[in-house]
């Protein structure tokens, strides 16, 4: 019988993921693993994990990994890549990590055109710490630190990182994707592959933003989360390619 699908070898065997039901981190890590295998670069890849739920992945993946202080993944990746250019380096960061505490590091690495890959997972909320407001939280969306919902007069508006980064000259590739449907998962996979291929081609800074859900902290079940993502998140965070050169 012809094998048409197999589990990515970049996941540890006999390991049960601790991600919540309906969370998309597992899907994103799987897509990354498949791309690393396709490009035959698993044995030269290192991931810089941000702080938050994504840090759980350190126990699940089989390849080189480190954890950065909260928000500093793009600075840590800069050091790794500059010191050892043959290593394929990517950061994996949530929205609090990349867009709040790490905003300076993200923008500055992008502005220097650092030759690594950023996987930015945007679910509009802080996950591991328990549903606090993020820079990406939607207007009116409730958070444990904005219990009446995000109020623009007090909290400002959601930050659109692809659009902000698109103001810079240096970045090579910026795309926003989602994993809410099989078709979008396939698109996300293509975007991730391109972001790694760019690094292999020494083309510079590539970032893939992936709009995802957080059922636990959104207070919704997995299916309701998908509906919320489609009806509320995607209108605020339109999918598409912002930069490709």
């Amino acid at each position, binding site marked *: 019988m012809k094998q048409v699908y197999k589990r990515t070898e970049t996941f540890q065997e006999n390991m049960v993921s601790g991600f919540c039901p309906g969370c998309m981190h597992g899907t994103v890590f799987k897509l990354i693993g498949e791309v690393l295998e396709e490009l035959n670069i698993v044995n030269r890849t*290192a991931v810089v994990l941000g702080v938050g739920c994504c840090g759980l992945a350190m126990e699940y993946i089989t390849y*080189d990994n480190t954890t*950065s*202080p909260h928000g500093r993944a793009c600075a*840590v990746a*800069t*050091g790794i890549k500059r*010191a050892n250019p043959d290593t394929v380096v990517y950061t994996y960061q949530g929205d609090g990590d990349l867009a709040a505490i790490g905003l*300076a590091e993200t923008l500055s690495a992008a502005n220097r055109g650092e030759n690594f890959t950023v996987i930015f997972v945007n679910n509009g909320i802080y996950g591991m710490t328990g549903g606090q407001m993020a820079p990406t939280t939607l207007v009116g969306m409730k958070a444990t630190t904005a219990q009446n919902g995000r109020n623009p007069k007090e909290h400002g508006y959601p930050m659109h990182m692809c659009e902000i980064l698109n103001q810079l000259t240096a970045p090579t590739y910026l795309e926003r994707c989602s994993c809410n449907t099989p078709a979008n998962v396939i698109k996300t996979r293509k975007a991730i592959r391109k972001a790694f291929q760019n690094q292999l081609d020494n083309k510079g800074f590539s970032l893939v933003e992936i709009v995802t859900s957080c059922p636990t902290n959104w207070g919704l079940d997995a299916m309701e989360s998908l509906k919320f993502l489609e009806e509320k998140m995607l209108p605020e965070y339109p999918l598409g390619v912002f930069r490709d050169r």
Partner: protein
Amino acid sequence: MSRIFLKGCEAIAEAAVRSGCRFFAGYPITPQNEIPEYLSRRLPEVGGTFVQGESEVASVNMVYGAAQTGTRAMTSSSSCGISLKSEAISFCASARIPMVYANIARGGPGIGSIHPAQQDYMQATKASGNGGFRMMVFAPATVQEAVDMTYAAFDYAQRDRNPVLILADGVLGTIMEPVVLPELRSEQEVKALKDAQRDWALVGHNPADGRAFIKPGRWSTLDQEQACKDNEALYASWENDVQVEEYLVDDAQYIITAYGISGRIAKSAVNKLRAEGILVGLIRPKTVSPFPYGAIEQLDYSRVKAILDVEMSIPAQMVFDVKLAVKDRCPIHTCLRSGGEIMSREKIVEAVRALAQ
């Protein structure tokens, strides 16, 4: 070997390159700017990398990253800038990443003043970040010592897989003195030093051979506790690495304790007081961590009448370590300046004369 005339900051930077440092990231702050400036042109000459970070925070995290590849890496700053580096230094200590950083200290607290001071002693030796980790901390008193200590610091860092701090001050960073530089390590030697760390280094491994897994934290509290115990064992091993200058202490009735630039000024005060017939000596820690408790503890307190602790910090800080060693066996006095005011020989001389009267 020929002597050349170098500014302290540039001498530290050149010593780092000669020791095999091939990555530096830093951010402007006075009085350490000559370190990043020098390395921005020097590192590319030896195939190394210089990055001006967007902040002290970013710079030290770049070093945290670069050092994880086994590359000898360094950052520098001054006082309030060093505070900003604390988080990543703590990460390095937790993940056991070898790196070197220099504090060309200035007045504090806060933004303080840009002038030389020794107000970061406690931060340097006791709590350079969260979590109770420790580092070897070298306190040079001359540009030559700064060179020798920086050169050796990379070896200690790699031996221990732990950060090492050069605790200097604005005087040492900006004065020019003749120095003898150590040999520049060859590219083959530098590569061998890096390759020796390949097993744990974050360079990409075949998963079948075991991945590099850098752990600044652990999900298991038992694992984290074990890491703390391992660190404790490392810190205990430094007993043999203590460095101290003991100057004319054998017959001394008065002992001055001072480190770094204050120690150097105190030495000239000892010479002047000895000419007056006052039996005074100096104990100058060259490593302030590990601290040379033994040198002070073993003094003959039937002879030693008093200790004068000299620091450019108000309130005094190193005096707490001196007290731990003296154990109430003689009075301890202080002679202090702070906030960027530099210690003078005359002030120390007068303080000792007052004790001797």
